[in-house]
């Protein structure tokens, strides 16, 4: 017997999204396959790699470790939601380009979400705090050094602009 579907209503990147989901559908699969928000990547599917990180009610979580049905009534921000109003990359994304913080790009959405959550909470992180914040995100091009630089660079630029 197929388990019954559940109606869900989730605020994704500022827009209400409705859907009917089987319980076993993970949040990341719903985002990618139903909403076509393919910025969030699926890596390990068991909570190790961090590629699928999203903001859930403002906090970074792994969207492969949640079922879509559990997001009903909550707020989700994916990497697509990190761009500015004009749809252009924000300061953090710019910084990733400037310091060459991505090579294959697979880990990048998760890194951006983790870094965004860090800077929201702590606008002037130390290098150790940056490394701790991305500690749950694997980069297999082994470009961690540039990713750390990018996040520090973004923090400096945001401070300069007086955004924070």
């Amino acid at each position, binding site marked *: 017997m*197929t*388990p*019954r579907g*559940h109606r869900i209503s989730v605020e994704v990147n500022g827009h209400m999204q409705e859907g009917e989901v*089987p*319980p*076993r559908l*993970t949040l990341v699969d719903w985002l990618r396959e139903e909403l076509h928000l393919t910025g969030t990547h699926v890596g*390990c*599917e*068991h*909570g190790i790699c*961090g590629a699928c*990180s999203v903001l*859930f009610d403002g*906090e*970074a*979580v*792994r969207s*492969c*470790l*949640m*079922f879509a*049905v*559990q997001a009903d009534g909550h707020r989700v921000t994916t990497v697509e939601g990190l761009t500015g109003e004009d749809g252009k990359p924000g300061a953090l994304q710019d910084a990733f380009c400037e310091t060459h913080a991505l090579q294959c790009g697979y880990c990048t959405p998760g890194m951006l979400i*983790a870094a965004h*959550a860090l800077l929201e909470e702590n606008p002037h992180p130390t290098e150790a705090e940056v490394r*701790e*914040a991305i*500690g*749950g995100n694997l980069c297999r091009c082994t470009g961690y050094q540039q990713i750390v630089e990018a996040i520090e660079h973004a923090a400096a630029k945001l401070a300069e602009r007086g955004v924070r």
Partner: protein
Amino acid sequence: MKAASFEYARASSIDEACALLREHGDGARLIAGGQSMVPMMAMRLARPSWLVDINGVPGLQYIRVEGDRLRVGACTRQRALERAAPASRFVPLLSQALQWVGHIQTRNRGTVGGSLAHADPSAELPLAACVLDAEVSVRSTRGRRAVRAGDLFTGPMTTALAADELIEDIAWPIWREDRVGSAFTEMSIRHGDFALVAAAAQVALDGEGRCVRANFGVGGADATAVAFPKLAETLIGYRLDDDVVAGVAARAVALLDPGEDLHASADYRRHLAGVLTRRAFCEARDRAIAQREGQIRQ
């Protein structure tokens, strides 16, 4: 890597969650943070027929001091406890242990009760619970009972909880002595990975630096986390010099029966248990001493 099919129910109260567990029997499992449950389901190590979600149950997320205990609701996020002032002030071992639990993204979602119910022998919170002799309140349709942490863990990923029982609250004893120090340390392949071996210690010293109370334990080196209250008791009245600590650590290691796997042999785990126990104990002692000096300066 996709979970097998299951039915899903969102409980709106503890009573409803208990009733759902009872109704659906052995095939039903609770989901709180899901940081261990969902990977197990993805790998088909767990195939519940019903998942009862307690994330929306009101009254399961709180951190409050009641007398000599810090009470934590089972569904409290690990990250919330890590950042809670009453935890770092009254039960610092908890905050110290939480630094080692997974990563920020998993602690944002993972719960305190979930970590205890999962009962991974190398997990940090079960070890802290054993060392602090935490009391776990358990609910079911049959009523409420209390289980001491040392009796909760019966084997790897195995607890004394019945299939229809739910952890509601964990009471962490607060040590009220003037000079208390604690420490948690572990060895893992990378920070945030499961511990190969972890050790925790908490000591209270008198004005002359003699031990008035102590406990310590080791995780990842036996079927469950293990605390050694009887060994710790032998330290009462003594100064915790390095050789005294080394002696008690060696006696603890002799009681452990570590397994071996791809990552570490049983001998290496035993070796780590000794080294880490000494480090945790000495750090706890030094913190208790530093606290005394801090008070004198004041």
